[in-house]
């Protein structure tokens, strides 16, 4: 169990010397307890303190890196069962299964070029999973050359070896067939120093397999949970996470791997919400990716750090100089809600998103981050004021109080119109207030 701020404080010298960069030993202790600082910063920490803190802080789930270069992905290092206890830390990798195909180069190129931006995050194809076939060494090489991390979905030790040897410098993940005898695969992984997936028919067998692989010299292990259906997978995924966090068996302290066949969308949803770290997904219709990436974004957001939009003027529909100009904060949820409602009204408009450090409208205003002068400055910087010929800015109803100061700060004859409190009232607002005023 991690130590509390007070417990850590009692291990420190309590001289408030400030050499760690904090004003008091207690302030430093609270950061240490939260895992946000390292004891190394205190030049006067006793050996007892180092020992106590060291023991309490080794992560229950190891980190494993797959691939090399800029697209290498590290998974694991999780510390909680519920995201609200703190946060989930390492986004699971969503690998795409690549079957042999004549246009494999074009396909890989299009995957590499795939980039979707959402709320400040870029969705990409994280890696490629290659099922064993005579073509797999070539496919694996083609994928690895393009920088993709590769997972080898092996069927036989020889086939696995052929592919793994070919791309061994790219640190591929070796995935034996489910239920296979791990011996040969473990030796291969140990020899090539690549990560290995182990499996077992039940939790006991799984944990044992992990220990065996470790003994065989494999440094990085992922666990493939047993299960035949959603119920079974839910059980094993939950049990593995709980077992790892409670340190019940060292064989459970590894990230989790899941195979998703075509049509197994629900299993993928379960995997993303329930602790899988790497999913190899077969998706024929292509419709699974966006919802899965978005789900991952949602679940893996730090509950304490709101997602922020890039400040700027966003167009809803095709607005022109007479279209309304609305202002809001860069809290992504606010943006999504407001922009969705605006689109539903059918009226093209400009939505100026102001940097309020990701806070919602009311919170930002209370913290002084949505005051008249700040908003005016932001609108001028992003040249929102130049986009419209009328000089009216519409602000959210909850911050009607800033209308006066915003008008003053904008100057130049600008008027501020107070919009509705709820985004869902934007339609009636346009109809009853904006249109008649035009």
């Amino acid at each position: 169990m991690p130590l509390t701020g007070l417990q850590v404080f009692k291990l420190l010298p309590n001289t408030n010397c400030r050499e760690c960069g904090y004003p008091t030993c207690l302030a430093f202790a609270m950061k240490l307890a939260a895992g946000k600082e390292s004891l190394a910063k205190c030049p006067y920490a006793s050996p007892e303190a180092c020992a106590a803190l060291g023991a309490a802080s080794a992560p229950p789930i190891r980190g494993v890196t797959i691939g090399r270069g800029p697209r290498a992905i590290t998974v694991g290092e999780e510390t909680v069962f519920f995201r609200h206890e703190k946060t989930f830390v390492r986004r699971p990798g969503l690998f795409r299964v690549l079957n042999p195909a004549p246009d494999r180069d074009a396909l890989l190129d299009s995957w590499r070029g795939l980039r979707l931006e959402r709320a400040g995050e870029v969705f990409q194809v994280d890696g490629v999973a290659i099922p064993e076939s005579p073509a797999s060494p070539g496919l694996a090489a083609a994928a690895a050359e393009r920088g993709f991390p590769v997972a080898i979905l092996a069927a036989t030790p020889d086939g696995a070896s052929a592919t793994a040897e070919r791309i061994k410098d790219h640190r591929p993940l070796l995935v034996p067939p489910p239920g296979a005898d791990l011996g040969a695969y473990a030796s291969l992984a140990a020899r090539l120093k690549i990560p290995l997936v182990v499996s077992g028919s039940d939790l006991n067998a799984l944990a044992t397999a992990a220990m065996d692989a470790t003994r065989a010299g494999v440094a990085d292990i992922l666990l493939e949970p047993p299960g035949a259906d959603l119920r079974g997978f839910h059980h094993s995924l939950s049990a593995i996470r709980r077992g790892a966090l409670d340190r019940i068996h060292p064989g459970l302290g590894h990230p989790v791997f899941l195979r998703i066949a075509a049509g197994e969308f629900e299993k993928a949803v379960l995997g993303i919400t329930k602790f899988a770290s790497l999913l190899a997904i077969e998706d024929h219709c292509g419709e699974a990716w966006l919802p899965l990436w978005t789900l991952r974004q949602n679940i893996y957001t730090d509950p304490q750090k709101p997602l922020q939009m890039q400040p700027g003027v966003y167009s809803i529909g095709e607005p022109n100089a007479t279209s309304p100009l609305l202002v809001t904060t860069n809290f992504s949820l606010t943006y999504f809600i407001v922009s969705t409602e605006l689109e539903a009204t059918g009226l093209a408009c400009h939505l100026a998103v102001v940097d309020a450090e990701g806070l919602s409208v009311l919170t930002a205003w209370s913290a002084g981050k949505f005051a008249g002068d700040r908003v005016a400055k932001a609108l001028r910087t992003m040249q929102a004021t130049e986009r419209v010929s009328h000089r009216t800015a519409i602000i959210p109803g909850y911050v009607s109080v800033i209308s006066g100061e915003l008008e003053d700060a904008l100057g130049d004859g600008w008027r501020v119109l107070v919009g509705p409190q709820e985004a869902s009232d934007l339609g009636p607002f346009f109809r009853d207030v904006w249109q008649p005023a035009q």
Partner: protein
Amino acid sequence: MSLELKPKRWPGAIRTVTLGSGSRRPLTVGGGNGLPLHTFEASFPHRPALALEITDVAPPRWIDTVRQPWNGVLGQPAAAALRAVDEFGADLVMLHLVGTHPDRGNRSPQDAAADVRAVLDSVPVPLIVKGPGAGPKQNDVLARVAEECQGEGLALHSACQEEYKTLAAVAVAYGHVLVAESPIDMNIAKQLNILLADASVDLRHTLIDPLTGGLGYGLEYTYSVMERIRLAALGGDAMLNSPMICLVGEEAWKAKEVKVSGGVHWELATALALIEAGAEVLVLRHPESLARLHRQLDCCFVGTAPGGDPCR
């Protein structure tokens, strides 16, 4: 070294709430004494129930993908309800009185009550009735519906902290279930239940609606508040252990991303994630989402799908 995973035991459990009485086939939800879907260590006498949403008037904002299965019955509540239950297999139905909103038709409380009566006459399953949104119109509409359909055990959606007294009174007087809605805040959910209990509402006839954020549009907030409510309930908090209801369809189909395609996956992902977080009643719009979820629930709670097919 062998593995010993102790099952987790909790001092509390989720209340059981029965929807539908009188001429309805009753449907009970809740009763679980463990974390959602943790059938390996807890017992769940009832599984989550899946509802389909129908509307009193043709819904202007439903996109093509979700309108298509309802072709011919949009805005015809009795016919839509029949299709929902007989063809699509919904466990229950939610009638959304969109047309009673002052800006969307301003239909009267009498019209609303007639629509509800038509649905009740058309299908035997329990009915959730959703009003036009908190305020005097909703109070009038739901009060009238409650009175005219007394004894049917309707679920009235919804009471909130600012507006609960009228609905509390009619729910108690006419034998209905009250949905208590809070804005993704566990404290407010609890406060509302306390206020309802103080107003003589029996919490065994209430559901909690924590306010659903769709996938990509606030899902994680709802997800975490539901996990926390579930934990409080299992920890013994009797003011937070009502079963939770999520209006998934309404939220999921608002997403920009589904305008062209992918809507069913979007709705499915939202619904499944919220089942894992503790949803006991889910209101969907697309029958395919419902069918797929039914298969998964059959699997999770029974072991095999109907017909013995292996589940995915």
